[in-house]
């Protein structure tokens, strides 16, 4: 798997997958496993809820349509039981309202079938990181790149970098998810607030502008393109 290469260093997560489609679950487990994560699988809603309540997981992936008990009810039951494990809801219903419904039911992210595995992986890892204690720092830092959120200033190797407001938000998001792979769709959702996919390479253009500002003239490149998946801000290649 091409994904192994860029996530193997990442601390593996314990993931619960509740999905009734055995084939889909099979390849998801294989892919997540090879990306360094430990997966438990439940094939119906009741069993899934039982496992979710008794086990300790970093992230849960829950299909919306399940036998015995539907995904949104599971999320609602978990939240009622004060379980705050991040949940990614998978759904075959793609309309805007369903997405809103899924998020208001207590889901943390929502992915519509058909989706790319790389997209799912990136989102799962972003969610897993979120469950780790959030740094309350006003400064974000990677190698010699520093961002001061109060003064709205970015410095690389002692030199101040002038960023447009949107570039600042883009870099902030990347810094908050440093070391992870973030997909173009995630950037569009989180930085620009759009939940549709443009047909052209809009995000690539903005990334390449940002890269020009932070990496140009430095031997150590920080902003990496991950083929077929997205981008990653990190020290290692």
């Amino acid at each position, binding site marked *: 798997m091409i994904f192994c290469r860029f996530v193997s260093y990442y601390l593996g997560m314990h993931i619960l997958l509740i999905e009734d489609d055995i084939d889909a679950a099979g390849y998801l487990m294989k892919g997540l496993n090879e990306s360094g994560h430990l997966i438990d699988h439940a094939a119906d809603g009741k069993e899934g809820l039982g496992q979710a309540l008794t086990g300790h997981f970093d992230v849960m992936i829950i299909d919306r349509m399940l036998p015995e008990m539907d995904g949104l009810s599971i999320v609602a039951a978990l939240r009622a039981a004060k379980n705050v494990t991040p949940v990614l809801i998978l759904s075959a219903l*793609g*309309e*805007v*309202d369903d997405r*809103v419904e899924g998020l208001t039911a207590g889901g943390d992210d929502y992915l*519509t079938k*058909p*989706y*790319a595995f790389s997209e799912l992986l990136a989102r799962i890892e972003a969610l897993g990181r979120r469950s780790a204690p959030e740094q309350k720092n006003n400064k974000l830092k990677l190698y010699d790149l520093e961002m001061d959120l109060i003064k709205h200033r970015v410095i690389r190797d002692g030199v101040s970098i002038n960023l447009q407001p*949107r570039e600042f938000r883009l870099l902030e998001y990347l810094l908050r998810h440093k070391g992870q792979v973030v997909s173009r769709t995630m950037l569009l959702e989180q930085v*620009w*607030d*759009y*939940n*549709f*996919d*443009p*047909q*052209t*390479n*809009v995000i690539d*253009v*903005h990334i*390449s*502008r940002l890269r020009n500002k932070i990496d140009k003239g430095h031997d150590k490149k920080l902003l990496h393109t991950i083929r*077929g998946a997205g981008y990653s801000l990190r020290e290692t290649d």
Partner: protein
Amino acid sequence: MKLINTTVFRMSMRFAALFAVIAIFALLSVYYITFAEMEEQIDGELQLEMIELSAYYRHEGLHELAELTEKRNQYGRHLRHYYALTDQQNNVISGNRILASIKPKNIDIKNEIFFFDTTQTFDDDDESILRIAYSSLPRGLTLTVAQANNSLHELREHTFTALLVAVFITLCIALINGVYMGRVVLSRLTLLNSGLDNAIKTDFRKTLVVPEQNDEFQTLTLKLNIMLGQIGKLIQGMRQVTDNVAHDLRSPLTRIRNGLEVTLLQSRSESEYRKAMESAIHDSNDLINTFNALLNIAQAEANVKREDWQSLDLAKLLLDLADLYEAVAEEKHLGFEFSVPKKQIIDGNNQLLSQAISNLLENAIKYTPEHGTVKLELLENNGHPTVVVSDNGPGIPENQFDRVLERFYRLDGARNSPGNGLGLSLVNAVVNLHGAKLVLKNNRPGLRVEINF
């Protein structure tokens, strides 16, 4: 449909029953009060007579009373008033002998006078219905006075019959009215129903004949026609999509399937396998994009889910999009002109509108050659906002303006560039959803797309 099953008929029957109950209650009350009053009046007259005669007796004595009684009995006959005076042994002293012989029954007492009702035939007269009063005088005498009230009884019977007839007529009129109204409504509903049957049979291509009378049926028919039109359009759209999907997805699916099959024909190097799989992933990504675009169009066309609408500022929406696309245009060495002079608040779905306008911007950027210019403007037309995306690229031939809005339709020259021919279909669907109008114009050179809200 049976008349008896119509709402109007049932309702008028219910009203008829209600009216009948009210009428019966009212008439019966009048009936009883009136007749009780009249009976009271007769008793009063009898009592007065009794008092007068007993006073006469006290002043004038027995003999005079006997004479007066006899006289009154004679003169009172034509008024059917009867008098009798009897002694202790029930011997008739004067007056009417027959009256004196009547045995009292069911007596009621008022002011020491005894009253009772009976019937009796006097000589040649018809049977009289009598109200009789008697009272005791000193020395064991009994004075009896009677009055026939046949006419009152006749009146009572007639009134009762009249009452029954009135209620009956009320019910009849209500019934006729119910049948009539039911018929009228039923006939118009039958017309509507047959029209609807016809519409269903023809897959909603036919609509209903609108009645000329300006009433609630006309309003209903007009609304139904709008609904039928929408259903028809949706059905047609669905067919078109199914056809197009079948047609346009066939080739990429074939490509993926056969590419993989051919790869498996003989054993190959790892890099060759990798290449085949990567190309399959690439092709399926295109398929996924096409599917998502179709779903988006379907959602915009479904025109129902309005919960996530909000009032939004078009200027802000365009500003955000410009922020996203200006860099893309510059990257392609295109000029990007942007003008949003002031706030324009409308009700809408932010995501769908952004996606629609981003489709227009992407088209403009994609098809305009280097050093061209793409413009994004927000104008105001008679108080209504208009969003304009224009370029000076190759444009679209004017006779193709309608066709490019169809799903999967692509201009001949564009077939080899990436894209699925769904972009403008989505724009059109979103614009329609917002009650706006999409207008394509020749920008001489280039394309000018206006969204008129």
